[in-house]
């Protein structure tokens, strides 16, 4: 039975209390994406300033729980200033850590052997830096949606920019 300390690590509480890159960028020129978690009412607004294959600036607004807020803050710190493909790779690694099953909420691991999907590929947590603190969220399946909220908005924003 996972305890609260797995979820509420110190880094997470710190980013929750003092979120980095808080706010919105003027849009245009920045690109603006909104994300909702219909299950709990959390909302996030991600503003992206992308140029020359680089995520030059990112800001987050909105409101939500400690997990969605700190995940957004940790994300912004990790991706700001990075080339887009590095950002994409980070997203991939992060979402793999979050076990990719978040869309179904109840995920396969818990419903018996014959329900199990192929094992997810192992994640090289070292690539994630401070983001690794969010690993404990996986033990609380309902909270995975909180942790991935801003990441999904970021992905959507990058996709929209790529196809624009």
């Amino acid at each position, binding site marked *: 039975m996972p305890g609260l300390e797995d979820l509420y690590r110190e880094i997470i*509480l710190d980013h929750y209390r003092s979120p980095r890159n808080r706010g919105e960028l003027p849009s245009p020129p920045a690109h603006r994406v909104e994300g909702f978690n219909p299950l709990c*009412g*959390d909302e996030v607004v991600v503003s992206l300033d992308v140029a020359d294959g680089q995520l030059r600036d990112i800001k987050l607004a909105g*409101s*939500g*729980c*400690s997990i969605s807020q700190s995940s957004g803050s940790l994300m912004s710190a990790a991706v700001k200033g990075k080339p887009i493909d590095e950002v994409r790779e980070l997203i991939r690694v992060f979402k793999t850590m979050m076990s990719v099953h978040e869309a179904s909420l109840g995920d396969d691991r818990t419903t018996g052997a014959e329900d199990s999907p192929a094992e997810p590929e192992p994640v090289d947590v070292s690539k994630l830096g401070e983001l690794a603190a969010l690993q404990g969220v996986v033990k609380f399946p309902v909270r995975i949606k909180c942790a991935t909220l801003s990441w999904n908005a970021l992905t959507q924003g990058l996709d929209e920019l790529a196809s624009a």
Partner: protein
Amino acid sequence: MTVHDPIDVEVIRKDFPLLTRTVHDRPIVYLDSASSSLQPRQVLAAMDHYYETTHANVHRGVYATAEGATELYEGARRKVGRFIGAPDPKREIVFTKNATEALNLVANSWGRSNLAKGDVVVLTEMEHHANLVPWLMLAESIGLSLRYLPIDGQGRLDLSDLDRIVDGAKVVALSAMSNVLGTINPVPTIAEAAHRAGAVVVVDGAQSVPHLPTNVTTLGADFLAFSAHKMEGPTGIGVLWGRAELLAAMPPFLGGGGMILDVSLEGFTPAEPPWRFEAGTPPIAEAVGLAAAVDYLTGVGMEHIVAHERLITTYAIEALHERLGPDCTIFGPPPGGDRGGVLSLAYRDVHAHDLAQVLDQFGVCVRPGHHCAKPLMRKLGVTATARASIGLYNDERDIDTLIEGLNHVGTVFG
């Protein structure tokens, strides 16, 4: 003054198997009855007995079990009808899959045949999405004008402008009790004004029917919707009560077996209500379970349930205030006659999701979120609350554990 509790909670709790389970090594404290109540073993036994001795499809069989199943199903209809004081239980109770389908049925069947572009529908600012989205969908489709009865600072409906707001309305649709604020709305007063204005009154009783004695006539309702799973019954069944004349004039909602008088390759003739509105194989075992739930509630006594829940609600509000002071906010009216056992809480600036997570470690089940009332959340200036809601099996100790958990939130989020 000590108030006598007419319910012996220790005895009641023995009927609810789920209350014997532990969570994180603590006894479960179930404070989420507004989402879905627990089921007493009597309800489960009735459904098992049905499946084990009498299961068959209804309405079309002459053999013994089919006849038995039909009798149980139609008997459930009458029992539910009497429970809410329906003048004609046999013809006025439609079984649906949940309260939501019941409200969609009204908006679609009655709505599409009685409303036209520009017609006014009055709702309230505290409606559950179930009594909001069907009207928004209808508005999008045929072009209605929606008006909202506002709420005041204590989470009550502000009726100062009632007559003007309902003036010219074709429908007034409102919840009898808020699933966020616990407010018990003055439906009879509003229904009277609505009827004076010529409107039809649709009451969302999802929260009120399980917790208050209900009589559709004194309520002044033309339609009443509710769900079994919030009143100690099973999932998978809801109820629409409608006045016989209204139902009789309504076109079918879903089409299929059981709701027709005749079908050809060119068209069909619908059956009489209530069968007209029950397409396909109905929730038979669920109707049996709902009837057993009604027996259970009636056995305990709805008056006793009200008194007990009011006692616990008052205890909760006072204890939260006394022991947590300004750290804890409770939305909705103060204890009193129009205060039901739904407590939407905020604790400092900790998000509802985090509150519920910490409380879970104490075995306490509360629900975080917008409770399917996003417009109300915006009005309250929050995105979510943590909602503790009270059922007939809750007692003071449950509230004490809730407060113990909330105190621990302070420690985690310091």
